[in-house]
């Protein structure tokens, strides 16, 4: 591979150079310098380079100032979720819509789904939840939001809106209507409601607890998933049959069955008294029978575990 036939032959340096890069005063090489560093002679001939040197600075500083001015004046465009395609990747945009659900992860992460009527997009911030809490702009399901972020598209994770600045999430809290259970119907799907009811059934499953609450006008299902329950410290308080609770959530439908999708399990309030007589709840007898069936089906292990937990609680007192 070694070739010895091609030694590095010295080019004649003087021939390779134009007069304009040699100092007229001392004859030394000065390159693009405007003043000879050796003898101080001004290099009058270097106008083209000097021009470009100056032009580069003017363009860089002036152009950047103008760009900054334009950027400050420019507001991220408001777009519809349905407009987004692969060409929008990394676009900084604004999306306005209703929050469908909110999830928190890790120490400072938050993500929520926003539906603007044309589609739904996941807005997420890998950090900033604490900041948002401070700012009071952590959205809840049902709230109207305006979010500014950059569009991120991957085949694996789908489309999302990355929130870089927590302040850029503007929340308009949803109006919450106090209703009786008979108003929780398919016609009101998506509405945020507050319902007071007695826990008639508490069906504990692997994925969470499915409550059925009732008032004097009817009964409705309130699913509480594990992720909801884990965030609440004393979650046993609202999974005890017979207790009366106040639930805030959106009216939803699952497999043709109406349910209340709880906005935040932390918001569930357990009432001290017994304001709704069980006998006045329509269909209570059948529901109570179902609850007994569920309890009898509960595995001895689960029961045992519950008993142990209860005993420990008693001993702790």
């Amino acid at each position, binding site marked *: *591979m*070694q*070739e010895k036939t*091609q030694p*590095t*032959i010295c*080019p004649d340096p003087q021939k*390779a150079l*134009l007069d304009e890069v040699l100092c007229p005063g001392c004859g030394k090489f000065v390159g*693009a310098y405007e003043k000879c*560093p*050796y003898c101080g002679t001004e290099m009058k001939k270097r106008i*083209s*380079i000097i021009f*470009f*040197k100056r*032009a*580069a*600075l*003017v*363009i*860089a*500083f002036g*152009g*950047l100032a*103008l*760009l*900054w001015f*334009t*950027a*400050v004046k*420019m507001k*991220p*465009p408001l*777009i519809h979720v349905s407009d987004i*395609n*692969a*060409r*929008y*990747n*990394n*676009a*900084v*945009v604004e999306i306005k819509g209703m929050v469908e659900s909110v999830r928190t992860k890790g120490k400072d992460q938050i993500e929520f789904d926003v539906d603007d009527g044309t589609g739904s997009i996941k807005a997420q911030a890998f*950090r*900033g939840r604490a*900041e948002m809490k401070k700012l009071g702009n952590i959205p809840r399901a049902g709230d109207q939001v305006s979010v500014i972020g950059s*569009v991120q*598209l*991957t*085949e*694996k994770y789908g489309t999302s809106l990355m929130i*870089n*600045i*927590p*302040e*850029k999430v503007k929340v308009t809290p949803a109006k919450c209507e106090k209703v009786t259970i008979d108003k929780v119907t398919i016609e009101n799907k998506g509405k945020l409601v507050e319902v007071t009811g007695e826990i008639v059934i508490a069906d504990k499953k692997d994925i969470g607890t499915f409550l059925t609450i009732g008032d004097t006008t009817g009964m409705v299902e309130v699913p509480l998933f594990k992720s909801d329950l884990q965030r609440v410290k004393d979650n046993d308080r609202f999974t005890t049959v017979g207790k009366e609770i106040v639930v805030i959530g959106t009216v939803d439908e699952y497999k043709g069955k109406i349910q209340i999708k709880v906005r935040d399990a932390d918001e569930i309030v357990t009432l001290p008294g017994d304001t709704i007589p069980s006998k006045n709840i329509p269909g209570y007898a059948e529901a109570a029978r179902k609850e007994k069936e569920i309890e009898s089906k509960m595995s001895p292990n689960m029961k045992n575990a519950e008993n142990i937990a209860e005993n420990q609680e008693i001993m702790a007192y």
Partner: protein
Amino acid sequence: MDSMAALQILIYTILGTIIGGILSMVPALHIFNVSGIALLIWFRWPFLMPEVALPAFFMAMLVAWANINTIPSMFIGAPDEAAVFVVLPGQKYMLQGRGYEASILTGVGSLGAIVMMVLLTPFLYYTLPFIKNIRSQNLAWIMLLFIIYMLMSEWPKGSGMGKTVWERFTWAWANLISGLTTFALSAFLGFIILNRTMVPLDMSFQGIMPVFVGLFAVAGIIQNLVSHQAVPPQHESKSIDVDYRLLGKGIFAGTIGGGLASIIPAVTGGIGGIIAGAATGQRDDRIFVISQGVSKTIYYVGAFLLFFVPTLMLSRGGMTIILKPLFTPYTNQEYFMILSVIMISGALSFLMMFPLTRWTIRLITHVDYHIILWIALAIVFVIVYGLTGWMGMFLMGVSTGIGLIPAFYHSRKSNCMAVLLVWMVLSQGGHGPAILKFFRLD
């Protein structure tokens, strides 16, 4: 994978290599611009390419580009962000009539890089996931380390002329100040373009393209346009002036450099190569040229390859960003498929280097290379305007101004990479909102 799919992949690999190789010869045209255009064409006429061949086609273009684009970078001097360091030694070789040899040296480096990527497969599968996880948890300060080293390791050019301390100090610091100015302006430009969509919304996926074209390609072209360099006759050597020891050293240094660049965001093959050169103590021009060839290939191709490692799925590099919305690899089969694409395309593009270098030499010795540069500039303008409109042209203009500062004031061009590095360090460290607020970009 059935035999039909395999055949389609093979055909599109060859096609990608040929198209990528030819387009690589256009000075200042970046593969990511070409990919953007190719993708737009595919969106419009999806029947032109089956979806199964999409990664193979783009990978083949990338491999060909990493190999062959060094030719215009060296001979005409319009480098991309990874090749800025190879231009000077390349041009030195050219002035000595050995441009052909220099070009083949980088090609040998690229070939070495492909061999290394194959050999390193177990490392990518079993060791890199750990390193990636550790890196991910420490990204902010690791990227800051690159910034610190980049700025601190730029020494004054010369010990300073002048009679007084102040004269000598300012003389020697002129280039350092130019470097710092380039760094600061690039960083500020990054704050703006990474937080505002300055180009048309439906071209956001090419949003930073005009900036890179301005900082590196257009600035390089202008620098060469104002220089009055005659191209001496070039010798088409039958062999290259290296032995296996030098080759090994070059590949070793380049693999480290390219490896660093392919796993650390915003670090380019050039910067990685410089760090690896310092770590391995290489001073020989030939080792440098080979290692830059290796580094560039691993930086571009290796970064995209990491996306295909099922145990890793590291999303790094421009090509991954462009193609991520369209497909995600999940299996070992896809990894080995893409590895074979790299090998086929690498071998083909290496063979293409010989005639393409010869043609380039003939072209620049017979045609005034200023004309070639003007044509290249016109092509770049058309592409940038066509894809991103007047705003893109404006961005390119501002970036060119910044890119010209290191060229005319004698500092490192890698300072321009602050356009990505600084924002990433600050946002990873959780300071992004404060910075944007300060500059009223919130």
